[in-house]
């Protein structure tokens, strides 16, 4: 019957397409190392599997941005690559998963990724669901304004209810700025990415963009004539590496590794090759928090 034939062709096509869609990952291996880790730890598991899934941002210039090459680049990406190589996993075996702000905890809890390095601020609320290694960098929330605008000097400038500010849905800076904004409905604009905020600022639809200073520095560096930083950081945002909540051995491993790279030059090198190009200062290495 014609219908049976059509159905058979359709089924075959579906199978072929799903194979094509799923099977396109990974290339040839270029030498992973067998390392010795204690049995039963995450490190041993990852080393044996010679594969690791890392969550990072795809849209933050300087930290995690997927460009035309198809691979994410940035400071977070470099730090994550260093961790992977210490686990004996080569760079091309890393699977980069996009972890937008709001999905980071879910992705760790569900096991979609093995760790998250994505401008991930450590705070107590998040510690209820995941565990943090680090911090590996201390950022702070700040505000970006148009170059010719001197009316906004800090978060208090929003208290009078006339200035409009933009941020990303579900991010800590958005929650933080809500404390300073007089009327959320007429002053706060939320998009899914900061890119859109930057465009809105340029188009004069909003008066400010608020998020961590390094993200803003990336945008300012790309468009120096249009933007500038409004003042100083008004919060402390320690960036951490998110892992599963009870995985203490993995956390210790990463913390030990971080302390090593703070001093042996790899940390500075990673910065200089990425976010450092925007003229941002690295500052002192933070102290890891082994809680």
């Amino acid at each position: 019957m014609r219908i049976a034939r059509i159905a058979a062709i359709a089924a075959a096509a579906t199978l072929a397409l799903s194979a094509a869609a799923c099977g396109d990952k990974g290339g040839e291996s270029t030498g992973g190392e067998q390392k010795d880790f204690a049995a039963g730890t995450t490190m041993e598991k990852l080393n044996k599997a010679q594969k690791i899934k890392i969550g990072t941002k795809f849209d933050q210039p300087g930290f995690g941005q997927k460009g035309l090459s198809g691979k994410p680049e940035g400071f977070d990406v470099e730090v994550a690559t260093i961790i992977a190589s210490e686990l004996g996993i080569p760079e091309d075996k890393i699977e980069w998963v996009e972890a937008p702000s709001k999905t980071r905890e879910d992705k760790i809890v569900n096991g979609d990724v093995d760790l998250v390095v994505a401008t991930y601020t450590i705070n107590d609320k998040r510690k209820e669901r995941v565990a943090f290694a680090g911090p590996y960098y201390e950022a702070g929330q700040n505000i970006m304004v148009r170059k010719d605008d001197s009316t906004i000097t800090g978060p208090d400038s929003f208290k009078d209810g006339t200035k409009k500010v933009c941020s990303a849905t579900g991010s800590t800076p958005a929650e933080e700025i809500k404390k300073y904004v007089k009327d959320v409905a007429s002053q706060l604009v939320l998009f899914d990415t900061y890119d859109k905020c930057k465009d809105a600022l340029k188009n004069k639809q909003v008066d400010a963009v608020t998020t961590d200073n390094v993200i803003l520095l990336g945008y300012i560096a790309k468009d120096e004539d249009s933007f500038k930083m409004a003042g100083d950081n008004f919060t402390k945002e320690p960036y951490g590496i998110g892992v599963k909540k009870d995985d203490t051995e993995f956390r210790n491993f990463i913390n030990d590794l971080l302390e090593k790279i703070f001093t042996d030059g790899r940390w500075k090198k990673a910065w200089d090759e990425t976010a450092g190009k925007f003229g941002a200062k690295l500052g002192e290495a933070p102290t890891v928090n082994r809680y």
Partner: protein
Amino acid sequence: MKTELSVLYDAPGPRQKKITWIGSILTLVALLAAAYVLVYRPLDAKGQFSMELWGPYVAPANENFDQLWDRLGFGLRQTLAAAVLAILSSLIFGTLLAVLRVQLRSVVRRTYTGFNLPVAYLLRGLSWTLSAVTRFCVEVFRGLPVVITIFFVGRGFPEFGISLEILWYLVIGLTIYNGVVIAEILRSGMEGLPGGQREAAEALGLSPLQTTRMILLPQSFRIMLPALISQIVVILKDTSLGFIISYEDTLNIAKQIIGVLDNPIQTYVVIGTIFIGVNYSLSKLAQYVQHRLARGRRTSPTRTGAAGTELETEAVAGTTT
């Protein structure tokens, strides 16, 4: 189109033709002037027509040209993969659901005279419950936006421990929504068929399932083809909603490109054109297929024809995004 034009006004005589000509030229000039003043000038003032912004898309010599079109090609392949999978599974799921609902309707009417009284009541109760549950699910998933359905699948499945690739979340979300819509389209097509068909099948000794499978379903497909086609176009457009669960389809790739090259308007014009091109060809192809099928057979009598047009326009007029 031709018929309606000729019935609404007379065939133009020489004077009318002159007036139409003059009117057309004036309108054309007015439209062009408006386009220039309202669209071209402001954009040009902001430098949106510069080669710097358009270069990566049109000039092969530009350094980013190759990489950019590589990425776009990747995005398009992802979109097509998701679309084809979603279309196939929606059609299958929709057909099964439609058959299920039609069967349930006839099962509910049976009276189970052969069984004891309590068993008969139990069977009737069960079939009634099943029918009600199906109806409830269908109404719920028809009433929810497909964005929400995809969002639920993408966030909900992992919470319940089911962990799949993002592509499958998108396909499952699209299938649930579009499958239900397709089921409704097919079901109303089947119910719009003349009752005589069903009676004749019964007289021939066919079971309800056989009737549905061999007689009602094929005709329903043929009659509802325009509605099904426009639903397929909808599925293709809805794959662009994958960005909310980070699926790297054409639109998401476009966002990444904009992040690097900072040319949003140019990128979206190119993407929009691509989408229009693909969807328009898809619709034209489907119309051609429909004409070929219609040529070889007589269409059903007036009652179906009228119901068909109505339902087809309902679905054609817009089921979702």
